[in-house]
C-alpha cells in the first residue's frame, strides 16, 4: 500500500510516504519552503515525497491527516463559549482560522492532490504522536506517553503498544488529559513570559533553566497542582489561553512572578532581573520534570512494561527525558527523531498502515535520514563560478579532521536530510569541543544567538561512556540527541565548548551503522586529539531552517564564519578576503 501522511496547519508542516509498510521519504515543509516552522499546507513536501518514490497522487491508496479537524473545531468553539465574554478578542481570529481552511482539510487535500476525498482520512493528533513514537521504535511492547500543547482535546495521553509475532499491532490509549489542562501550554506560557516565541523558544527556556535555581517552585505549584488520580490540573486563574492566545498567561500570573521579560530585552544573567528569569525558568523546568517522572513511574508500575515510548512536543525536553529514564523505572526510553508535530506525518501514515488497514508490522529503519540527498557536483560548480577554492578530495575525512583539529569550523553536508529538529550528522556545523572560546565564536560569528544557549556534542558510541555519564539505556536515548546527561567531571575542562553551565550536555551517541562517514570523522578526529567528540550544531543561521541543498549550505557558508564547507568529497575553503568581509560585518 502507498500511504501518504500529512501534518500541518498549526506549526511545522510535513509529509511522509510509507510504501508497503516501510517509510521511504519524510520531510518538513520548512526545509523546502525555507520559512522556519512553516505551518502552511505542505505541498512542496508532498511533491518531493511523491517524486522521490516515482509516484503520482493517483498511485496513493490513502492520504492520512494527522488530526481530526471537526474535533479540533469542537474544542475551539467550546473554549470560546466557556470563556464568553472574555474570549471576544480571540473569537474572530479563531473562527477565521478554522472556517477559512482548517475545517475543510479533507477537501483541501483532495483538491490539491487531485484525488478522491474518499482516500483522505483523519486520525487523532495524539494517536499520530503515539504511532510516531511506538511504531518507529525497535521494541515489541512499550508503554506510551504523549504530551504537547494541545491536539483536538487531548493534551496528554498514556497507553501501551504491542507488535505481535503474527504481525498484528495495537496502540491502546488508556486515558488522557484534556484542554486546557496541558503541560505543554504551561511550559509555553512560561516561554512567552520569559520573552521567547511560543512553539519556538521552549528549548531556550530549558537552556536558561541551567543558570537558575528552582527558587520559584512553590509559586509554580500554584499554577499546576496534582489531582487525586495521579494527573495534574492547571489553575486557570493564572492563564489566559483564550483572551491572550499569543502569551497564554494572565495578570494574576504576572502578579505572582513579577513583570515579564520583553522580547527585545537582553537577558543579563549577572543582573538580579536576569537571575530572576533564570530562576523562573529553572522552577518551571523542575516542575515539568516532576510531573513527567511521576506519571511515567505510575505507568511503569501499572503496565509492568520495561520500555517507554515518548511523543509530542514535550518529548523534545531532553533534561526531562533523561530524568524519566533515570527515575521512572523504565529500562529503555525511545524518543523519535521528530517527536513534535512534524513527526506526526510519519506517525499518521504508519498508524493507518498497521492499524486502520491491518497490515503486518515491519521494522522501521532506525535512523532519521528520510529527506533529500545533496548534489555534490552542484557545490563544486557554484564554488568554481564564484572563484572560491574547491577540490574533490579522496581523503576528505582526513582533511576535515585536520581542519577541525586546528580550530576550523566545518559545514558538513552528507546524505539524506534529517527528519526532525535536530542536526544528526547530515546537515551539521562541526567544530572542536574543547574550549569556551569556540562556543563563544560559534554564538557570535556563526549562529548569532544568545550566549546562554549550549552546543551539543556527538560522540562515537564505543567511547560515549568514557566522556559522559550515561544512565542504563542512555545510549539509546542519545541516539537522536533526545537526552541531556552529565559530562564526566574529569573531561569537563577538555570538553568545555559543549559542557553546559550545569555540567551537562545534550549528546548524540553515534552508531557506526547509522552514519558511517561521521563516525569515521570522529575516529579520525580522535586519532589527532585523543578525544573522539565533536561539537555538532544544526547547519543554519538564526531564524532560518536547517539547510537542505548544497546551494543553501553554500549561501550559509558565505554569510557566516564557517571556514570549510564539505559535501561528500567536495571541500570548499573560504578565502581570506571573504572571511574578512564577514568579520567586518559582524563587528
Amino acid at each position, binding site marked *: 500500500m502507498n500511504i501518504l501522511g500529512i501534518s500541518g496547519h498549526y506549526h511545522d508542516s510535513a509529509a511522509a510516504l510509507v510504501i508497503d509498510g516501510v517509510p521511504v521519504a519524510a520531510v518538513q515543509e520548512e526545509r523546502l519552503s*525555507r520559512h522556519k516552522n512553516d505551518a502552511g499546507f505542505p505541498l512542496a513536501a508532498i511533491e518531493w515525497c511523491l517524486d522521490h518514490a516515482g509516484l503520482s497522487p493517483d498511485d496513493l491508496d490513502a492520504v492520512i491527516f494527522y488530526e481530526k479537524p471537526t474535533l479540533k473545531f469542537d474544542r475551539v468553539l*467550546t473554549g*470560546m*463559549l*466557556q470563556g*464568553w*465574554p472574555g474570549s*471576544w478578542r480571540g*473569537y*474572530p*481570529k479563531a*473562527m*477565521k482560522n478554522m472556517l477559512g481552511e482548517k475545517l475543510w482539510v479533507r477537501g483541501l487535500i483532495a483538491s490539491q492532490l487531485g484525488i478522491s476525498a474518499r482516500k483522505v482520512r483523519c486520525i*487523532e493528533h495524539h*494517536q499520530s504522536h503515539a504511532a510516531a513514537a511506538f511504531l518507529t521504535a525497535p521494541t515489541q511492547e512499550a508503554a506510551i506517553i504523549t504530551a504537547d500543547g494541545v491536539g483536538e482535546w487531548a493534551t496528554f*495521553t498514556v*497507553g501501551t503498544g504491542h507488535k505481535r509475532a503474527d504481525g498484528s499491532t*495495537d*496502540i*491502546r*490509549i*488508556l*486515558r*488522557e*488529559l*484534556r484542554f486546557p*489542562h496541558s503541560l505543554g501550554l504551561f511550559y509555553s506560557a512560561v516561554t512567552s513570559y520569559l520573552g521567547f516565541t511560543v512553539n519556538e523558544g521552549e528549548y531556550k527556556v530549558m537552556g536558561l533553566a541551567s543558570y537558575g535555581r528552582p527558587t520559584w517552585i512553590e509559586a509554580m505549584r500554584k499554577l499546576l497542582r496534582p*489531582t*487525586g*488520580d*495521579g*494527573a495534574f*490540573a492547571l489553575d486557570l486563574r493564572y492563564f489566559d489561553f483564550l483572551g491572550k492566545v499569543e502569551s497564554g498567561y494572565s495578570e494574576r500570573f504576572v502578579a505572582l512572578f513579577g513583570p515579564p521579560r*520583553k522580547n*527585545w530585552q537582553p537577558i543579563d544573567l549577572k543582573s538580579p532581573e536576569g537571575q530572576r528569569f533564570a530562576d523562573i525558568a529553572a522552577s518551571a523546568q523542575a516542575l515539568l520534570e516532576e510531573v513527567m517522572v511521576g506519571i511515567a513511574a505510575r505507568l511503569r508500575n501499572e503496565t509492568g512494561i520495561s520500555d517507554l515510548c515518548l511523543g509530542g512536543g514535550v518529548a523534545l525536553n531532553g533534561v526531562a527525558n533523561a530524568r524519566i529514564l533515570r527515575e521512572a523505572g523504565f529500562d529503555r526510553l525511545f524518543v523519535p527523531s521528530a517527536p513534535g508535530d512534524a513527526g506526526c506525518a510519519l506517525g499518521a501514515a504508519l498508524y493507518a498502515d498497521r*492499524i*486502520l488497514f491491518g497490515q503486518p508490522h515491519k521494522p522501521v529503519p532506525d535512523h532519521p535520514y528520510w529527506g533529500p540527498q545533496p548534489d555534490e557536483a552542484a557545490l563544486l560548480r*557554484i564554488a568554481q*563560478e*564564484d572563484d572560491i577554492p574547491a577540490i574533490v578530495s579522496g581523503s576528505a575525512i582526513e582533511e576535515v579532521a585536520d581542519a577541525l583539529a586546528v580550530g576550523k569550523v566545518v559545514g558538513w553536508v552528507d546524505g539524506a536530510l534529517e527528519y526532525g529538529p535536530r542536526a544528526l550528522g547530515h546537515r551539521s556545523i562541526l567544530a572542536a569541543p574543547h574550549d569556551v572560546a569556540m562556543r563563544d565564536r560559534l554564538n557570535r560569528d556563526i549562529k548569532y544567538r544568545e550566549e546562554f544557549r549550549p552546543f551539543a556534542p556527538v560522540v562515537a558510541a564505543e567511547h560515549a561512556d568514557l566522556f559522559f555519564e550515561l544512565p542504563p539505556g542512555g545510549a539509546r536515548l542519545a541516539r537522536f540527541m533526545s537526552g541531556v546527561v552529565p559530562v564526566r567531571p574529569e573531561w569537563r575542562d577538555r570538553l568545555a565548548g559543549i559542557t553546559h553551565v550545569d555540567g551537562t550536555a545534550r549528546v548524540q551517541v553515534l552508531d557506526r551503522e547509522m552514519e558511517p562517514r561521521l563516525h569515521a570523522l570522529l575516529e579520525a578526529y580522535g586519532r589527532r586529539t585523543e578525544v573522539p567528540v565533536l561539537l555538532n550544531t544544526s547547519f543554519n543561521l538564526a*531564524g*532560518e531552517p536547517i539547510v537542505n*541543498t548544497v*546551494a*543553501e549550505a*553554500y*549561501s550559509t557558508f*558565505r*554569510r557566516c564564519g564557517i571556514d570549510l564547507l564539505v559535501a561528500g568529497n567536495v571541500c570548499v575553503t573560504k578565502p581570506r578576503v571573504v572571511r574578512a568581509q564577514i568579520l567586518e*560585518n559582524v563587528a
Partner: protein
Amino acid sequence: MILWPVHRLIWSDPQRRARKLLEFAEVEASGGRDLVRAAELTNDPVLRQRYLVHARDEARHADMFQARGRQLRKETAGEGKEGLADWMAPGERGIDGLDLTRESDADLLAFLHLSESTAARDFARYARVVKGDPATRILFQRILADEDEHRAYTHDELRRVARRRSGRVLWWARLRRLWKAYLRFATAFAGVMAGLILTLQYFVLLPPFAVLARRNARKEKTGWVAVGEEKVR
C-alpha cells in the same frame, strides 16, 4: 505631499516610532532572507554575488533598525501595541511575497528595483519628518544611501539580463505590484469585515450557548479521562 501630516503624526510619537522601526527591522530581515533564497536559486553567478551582498546589507539594516527601535523603547519605557494591519504599514515590502522558485531572474530584478525605489522614497520622506530625532534621521539617511545603490544595481542587472525587454518587464512588474497591493488591501478589508461580523455574532448569537457551555464546564472533573473503546484498536 498629501500624506505629509499623516507621516508627521505617525512619527511624532516616540513609542509609535519605536514600533515602526522594529517593524522595519522585521521587514528588512525578511527581505534579506528572500534575497538569500534568490541567491540560492539563481544560475547566474553575477546575480548570486549581488544578491548575497544585498542580503548582507538588508541584514545590517535590520540590525540598525532594531537597535534604534530598542533604544527608543528603552528611553520611553513603553510597551506599545504589537503590530498594525498589514496594509497600513508603510515602507519596503521585501520581495512582495513572491514565490521565488517560479520567478525568472528578470522578473525578480524588476520587482527588486521597484521595491528598492519605493523604499528609498519612503525612507527619504521619513528622514524629513523625524527632524526632532537626529539619531533616527541619521539612521534613515545611512540606509537611504544603500537603497540608492540597490536601486541602481538592480536596474543595471535588469538591463543586462533582459536587454531590450527590460522596459516591458518593469511595466509588467509595476502592474503585478499594483495587483498585489489590491489583493493585500482586499484581504485586509475582508479580514476587518469578517472580524466585525464575527464579533457581532459573538455578542448576539453566542450568549445562550455560552451559558450552556459554562454549565457543562462546571460539571467536568479535572484529572484523567478514560478513553472510550473507539480509540482502542
